[in-house]
């Protein structure tokens, strides 16, 4: 039952983008007589400026994240946190992924691949890891790109709220996997 829902959702997903690319201009052209080509070009013009505008913000954040990852600071932090999280039943093998997820998309995908290779796709660590990966976003990257695109430098409570949500997401991934797939 679940498998067929997932199957059809994933199968349907690949039609969404082509449908939007055709459907929106079709509605505009047929119902509202919008000059679709001319309007498209006007809108598309901003693509360059926005992409270039985020460069300094992205350099700042990605360099800090990259240095942090390369330094081994994460491993030191893991050693420190593992005993604490063990108390609440958080599996130590999923901790690196939980900490990497907000920092780096490619880094956390690498860790998930490791989990799958080491324990097998059908194992609990892999399922928890995949749930964590799917239920969260690269918080630091999103903050840098989104705020960078409008030159906002004072982000107020965005990071605290985002990281708290990430932590709750990771904990609930463990909880629901143990509850439903255990």
């Amino acid at each position, binding site marked *: 039952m679940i498998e067929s829902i997932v199957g059809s959702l994933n199968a349907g997903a690949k039609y969404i983008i082509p449908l939007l690319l055709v459907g929106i201009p079709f509605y505009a052209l047929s119902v509202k007589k919008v000059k679709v080509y001319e309007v498209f070009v006007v809108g598309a013009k*901003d693509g360059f400026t926005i*992409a270039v505008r985020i460069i300094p913000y992205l350099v700042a954040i990605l360099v800090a994240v990259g*240095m*942090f990852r390369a330094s081994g600071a994460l491993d030191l932090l893991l050693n420190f946190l593992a005993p604490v999280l063990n108390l609440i039943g958080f599996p130590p093998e999923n901790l690196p992924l939980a900490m990497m997820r907000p920092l780096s998309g490619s880094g956390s995908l690498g860790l998930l691949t490791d989990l799958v290779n080491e324990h097998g796709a059908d194992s609990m660590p892999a399922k928890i890891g995949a749930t964590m990966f799917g239920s969260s976003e690269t918080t630091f990257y*999103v903050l840098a790109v989104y705020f960078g695109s409008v030159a906002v430098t004072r982000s107020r*409570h*965005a990071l605290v709220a985002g990281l708290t949500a990430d932590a709750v997401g990771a904990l609930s991934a463990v909880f629901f*996997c143990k509850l439903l797939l255990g």
Partner: protein
Amino acid sequence: MLNYIWFGMMAISVVAAIFTGRIDAVTEAAINMSKTAVEISIGLIGIMALWLGIMKIAEESGLIKIIARGLKPITIRLFPDVPADHPAIGSIVLNMAANMLGLGNAATPLGLKAMEELQELNPKKDTATNAMVMFLAINTSSVQLIVPATVVALMGVAASQIFITTILATLCSTITAIFMVKILEKTKTFSVENAS
């Protein structure tokens, strides 16, 4: 806030690298990541142009307004400072829809368009508004209905098992994000006046 976190991450990295003997790796990472950042940004130009063009058509044809009006009951609670028929609401809704369907490529341009429209309503241009923070928090907690294609490829048949756990976990993190934003935006530390 970001000032301390940004500096702190780099400072901790250098100190930790001295202990772990990875100072060369840290230097290399700093240089490589600065290149990666530019590659990512430049790589966005094409996709940005494509979706911003399509969005402009959607806007001119009134589609965005129709969508914004339909979801008004939800959006006026999440974004009370944004007028319900403002174009930002349309972009926000489309960005969330793209995220839910796992269309990351479309989600970023739509999200940046929403930020630009929210910035028009912002009286203090270098400081995030309540609406911006709410939008970002919902975004980073990632409301997702479809297991990402990369995970499906990696997990094979087991991917269907994590479908429900992913939705439940994502629901918990999104609800947390919304509550955290609503609570924190009223505190003195994070007020617009004290913003950092």
